[in-house]
């Protein structure tokens, strides 16, 4: 059975994926694989994961997100998570899961701004180093 795939858009040199529905585990894993494939194919410098429509992030999804950030990082892509809802933020902190190596921003607009800043910084470091 085909799992409905989450659309991954490209804006400038960044990829943007917005999770619009409740992800069961298999779909989440499929999503992660799709993302990493697209990053590899497009050599995107940044990835924005928008979680505005996500109402529950449990330890599995948190771990998956961390995995995405780590694997993307290995490919040279900066990951920014946007749109975490307040109730999800509180739950994540109480659950005790850390979103390691992940930059977060309130919304898409701020996420892209943050991404630009970080990617710029990296390129500057690159030329000097």
């Amino acid at each position: 059975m085909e799992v409905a795939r989450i659309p991954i858009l490209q804006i400038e040199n960044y990829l943007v994926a917005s999770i619009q529905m409740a992800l069961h585990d298999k779909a989440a894993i499929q999503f992660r694989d799709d993302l990493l494939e697209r990053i590899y194919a497009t050599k995107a410098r940044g990835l924005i994961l928008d979680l505005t429509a996500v109402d529950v992030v449990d330890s599995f999804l948190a771990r998956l997100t961390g995995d995405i950030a780590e694997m993307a990082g290995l490919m040279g892509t900066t990951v920014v998570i946007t749109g975490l809802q307040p109730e999800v933020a509180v739950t994540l902190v109480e659950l005790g899961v850390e979103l390691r190596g992940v930059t977060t921003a309130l919304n898409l607009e701020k996420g892209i701004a943050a991404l630009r800043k970080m990617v710029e910084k990296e390129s500057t470091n690159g030329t000097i180093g």
Partner: protein
Amino acid sequence: MAEKTDLDQYKEFVKERLKSLLDVVQSVSSGDFSVRVETPEEEDEFTALSIELERMIDDLVEANKVSEERMATLQTVVEEKERLLKTVRELSSPVIQVWENVLVMPLVGAIDSARATRITEDLLTGITKSQAEIVIIDITGVPVVDTSVANHLIQTIKAAALLGAKCVVVGISSEVAQSLINLGVDLSGVVTRSNLQAGVRYAMEMMGLEVVPKKRER
């Protein structure tokens, strides 16, 4: 047909009087105070009981009224107290926008687990509403900063970070700083400044802003 004997007549009289008194007692015990004791004009063996019963019922009615009035007063007092508490709660974690994308949250008073949850919720709501990127948490007015309060603060800061807001804690006195270090609290991820002014300066720096005196008109 035999006539009723005196004994039978007497038995009936007793049954009747007892029944009417019993009816009254049953009504009263089920909460109906509207019934009245009927005391026949002619005095009989039950008159004394009737009169005492009537008096007792009157006392009960009176006591009931007093009790209901007291309940009403108590209810008003409780409602007033609830209203005051609500005001106190709202005042206890105000979130103030002092600049674009910069919030200040002054905390006054003790912070327990329940209050810490409310503080976190209020702060996150504030961040969402104002799109804040920096939050200055002023704990000058918090009397006791022990491990538990420190941990609550760290939780709040973590949650704010997930919404893209950086927090700076100000108002930690040197005694509090010392005791926190002695308690072994890990404040490594927490940015602190001495007071509100220093906190605002930090916020401005983070936002890439600078305060420059106005050029004087010639």
